[in-house]
């Protein structure tokens, strides 16, 4: 793992950090939702600071290059995140449908009573 990749990791972590802070300032993102991204960025910094982690896992799984381990790690984490988002969207959609139906039924009922 060369120095350039380590620098790149730190730069990416910084970009994530800056991006999140800007969204927080604009109140576009909730504090709870930032936990994941901060931990994600922290992982980048950790891997850049201690490349031995990447070497250890590359040897363990049998990768030629530790960079491959980092790619796999990032893809896996984002994969899980995307899956969680799908579930969250489904739950939100269900709530939205329920609210819509309840509004319509309540309105119908009050029309009838008038």
């Amino acid at each position, binding site marked *: 793992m060369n120095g350039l990749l380590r620098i790149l990791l730190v730069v990416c972590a910084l970009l994530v950090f800056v991006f999140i802070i800007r969204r927080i300032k604009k109140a576009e993102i909730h504090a709870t939702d930032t936990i994941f991204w901060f931990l994600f960025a922290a992982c980048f910094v950790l891997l850049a600071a201690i490349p031995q982690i990447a070497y250890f896992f590359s040897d363990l799984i049998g990768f030629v290059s530790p960079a491959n381990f980092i790619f796999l790690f990032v893809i896996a984490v984002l994969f899980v995140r995307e899956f969680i988002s799908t579930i969250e969207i489904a739950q939100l959609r269900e709530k939205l*449908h329920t609210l819509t139906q309840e509004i319509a039924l309540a309105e119908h009922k009050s029309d009838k009573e008038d």
Partner: protein
Amino acid sequence: MKVLIIIPAHNEEGSIVTTVNSLKRLTPSIDYVVVNDGSSDRTKELCEQNAFNIVNLPINVGLAGGFQAGMKYAYRNGYDAALQFDADGQHKPDYIQPMVDAMRETNADIVIGSRFITQKKKFSSRTIGSSIISGLIKLTTGKSIKDPTSGMRLYNAKMIELFVTKHDIAPEPDTIAYCLRKGAKVIEVPVEMQERLTGESYLSVSKSISYMLRTCISILILQWFR
């Protein structure tokens, strides 16, 4: 038996008045409700002008959510059965009473208005899709449903409760398969259908493909885990 006809309507300004008026003329003793699913055209205004019984969803939630609103209406107003009826004029009110009678006589949970009991399926892309779904239902439940894609279905109180409480249930063929496997009694009654009066079928090519994929995946894989 107290029956409610549920008419989900999304942008049906061209046919809604004719459909509801013919329902009122031909089945005056049966209650109905139009569920306006956030139409952007004049569907809502036309229903109000004609003093139709309408539940008005402020935004578009799709057929499943719209139909569920109708089922909630049926559930809360104590109906014994609910009929799914298209707003576009495809379904003929003359066949409603025979379906209700069939439910009363056989104690069925679901009565499907079926186009293919007396008539053979004509060869078209639509009937191929229907045959594939029939085959999958036969394969997974052992029961034969000749017209699984018919949108004219009568559900009893037990099914109304299912629709109200479960959010992943849609008025689609995979629900028929699911209910069959859970031990529901499903029968078919012969009906005729008309070509739609106005508007465009919601089944475009891409939508047809995603409809088939969704239905097949749901019947083949998902229903075992529900």
